[in-house]
């Protein structure tokens, strides 16, 4: 049996369809969220790619679909009163767990995601299409070129080089860092319903792979026999209504064109079997005593909720550089240096 993603890349093993979500928000009042609210289940960090007041909310750890949906609803409900702005800079990234899948199953999952990529992109804002932070396989085809080579040679150029392939719409490189596949193209929507539909759509696509033991080439053959639109409907069910009906066929065709290169390339099993399994890395230290799955339990009255570490900001909210280990303190007035009074010289005591 081929090794799992966890054994290959040494990422923590998480079982089943689990999710991680990152939501970027901008707005003058948004930074107060972390001070005034204890959004249980979410952590925050400053995102310097956003304008002042930009914050990224992210999951403490992987959650199942039900808790993911609950967390999203809560985040939108709790942040609404802080009047967040939904600009073209803010995006939402969804991670889907693949750490428990074997390498051949990982490639099957990559393939079916490539088949649906163009269709998924039709759901996001126009500004997010062709955006340099989430380039599709059609726009940045080195992903396809190297996925073919990876499958043929038993290497992991795409799924193992995080910085080189991170800005793909489908970030396959998240496999080596988090044991996930990342969907980067969705903007931060004004209504949580958009994100909930998006997550459910991702769930349907990936569950199709988990539920079927057929190789990816069979998906392509199935789509060509049944027709791309029929195949899409059989996978997505009612969620096919998220997309414009008259575009589904063409968009699926474009995705299938990209996916077929990967699907019909034979996996080099011998080379992958020679890879020495790595022990999983330690869980990320979130500076938080709560276990991941208890993240959504309300803290008891008086219980101290750990606050996230935030980057230094100036008085106007602009990011500040650190000087070595010393952080620039803006909230304290500068103090004049006062010399310590010297001890008066005392004459030696007479014995």
């Amino acid at each position, binding site marked *: 049996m081929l090794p799992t993603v966890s054994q290959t890349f040494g990422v923590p093993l998480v079982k089943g369809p689990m999710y991680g979500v990152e939501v970027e928000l901008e707005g003058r009042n948004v930074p107060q969220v972390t001070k005034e609210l204890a959004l249980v289940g979410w952590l925050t960090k400053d995102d310097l*790619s956003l304008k002042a007041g930009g914050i990224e909310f992210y999951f403490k750890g992987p959650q199942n679909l039900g808790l993911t949906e609950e967390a999203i609803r809560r985040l939108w409900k709790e942040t609404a009163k802080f009047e967040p702005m939904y600009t*073209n800079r803010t995006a939402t990234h969804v991670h889907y767990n693949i750490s428990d899948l074997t390498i051949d199953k990982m490639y099957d999952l990559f393939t079916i995601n490539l088949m649906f990529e163009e269709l998924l992109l039709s759901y996001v804002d126009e500004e997010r299409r062709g955006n*340099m*932070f989430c380039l599709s396989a059609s*726009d940045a*085809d080195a992903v*396809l070129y190297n996925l*073919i080579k990876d499958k043929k040679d038993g290497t992991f150029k795409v799924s193992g080089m995080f910085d*080189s392939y991170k800005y793909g*719409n489908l970030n396959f490189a998240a496999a080596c860092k988090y044991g996930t596949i990342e969907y980067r193209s969705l903007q931060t929507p004004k209504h949580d319903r958009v994100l909930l539909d998006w997550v459910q759509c991702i769930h349907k696509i990936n569950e199709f792979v988990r539920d079927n033991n057929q190789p990816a080439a069979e998906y392509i053959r199935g789509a060509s026999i049944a027709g791309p639109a029929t195949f899409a409907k059989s996978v997505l069910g009612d969620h096919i209504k998220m997309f414009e009906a008259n575009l589904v066929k063409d968009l699926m065709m474009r995705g299938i064109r990209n996916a077929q290169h990967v699907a019909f390339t034979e996996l080099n099993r011998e080379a992958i079997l020679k890879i020495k399994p790595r022990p999983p890395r330690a869980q990320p230290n979130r500076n938080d005593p709560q276990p991941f799955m208890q993240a959504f339990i309300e803290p008891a009255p008086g219980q101290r909720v750990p606050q996230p570490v935030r980057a230094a900001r100036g008085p106007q909210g602009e990011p500040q550089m650190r000087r070595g280990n010393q952080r620039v303190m803006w909230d304290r007035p500068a103090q004049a240096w006062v010399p310590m009074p010297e001890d008066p010289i005392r004459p030696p005591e007479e014995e």
Partner: protein
Amino acid sequence: MGLKSFIDSGQAHAKLSGTIIKIKGKPAYVFNVDRENKVHWCRLPDKADVESGAAEFDDNDERIVRPGKGQRSNKFNSETMDLSPLPLGYVNLNRPFQKGAYVVGVHRIPVRNARVGIHSGNVLFSNKEGRWNLFFTKNMEDTMMGRYPSLMDALDRAGKTGMCAFSRNFAVSNSKLYHVYYEEPVGSHMGGRLSLDPDFRYLGELLAEDL
């Protein structure tokens, strides 16, 4: 960051300078965005010096000024500037590349902290000895614009140079057919008739479209 707006001219300079984007419908090299949000650019040169890497620029310092004033973000003229990804693929070269290759596949990498346009840091060459300066020419412009010889012209040229691309996906050598993603041939040709190997039959539809 959006496709057509930047926080300030500094960000625009950081993301655009030194890259190839589409300006007025054709690829252009941006070498500066100044503090007045003017974009300084030039067309790709006819040829580049293979040895030193220096390119012969036209003295063509055209400028694009943003259309409106008083906007919060610097919106560039989207009618003249197109920041969407430029299509790549096979590049036909005028002179032999290392090891005598006249055709090289160029692919964009979704690299982190990348700039908007095409530059040496976000492309991958199918030939390991790929050198950026060779491609910073009209040959690259032909690829980006989808200008390729017809199949018959490509076959003639392949007889002289060994290989020639007739679309961004396919190229022909003396007797073989190649696809840009694969090192090995995907088919063959005889008397101008192309045929795909059984393992690559799925490329038939794409090949028919490209012909």
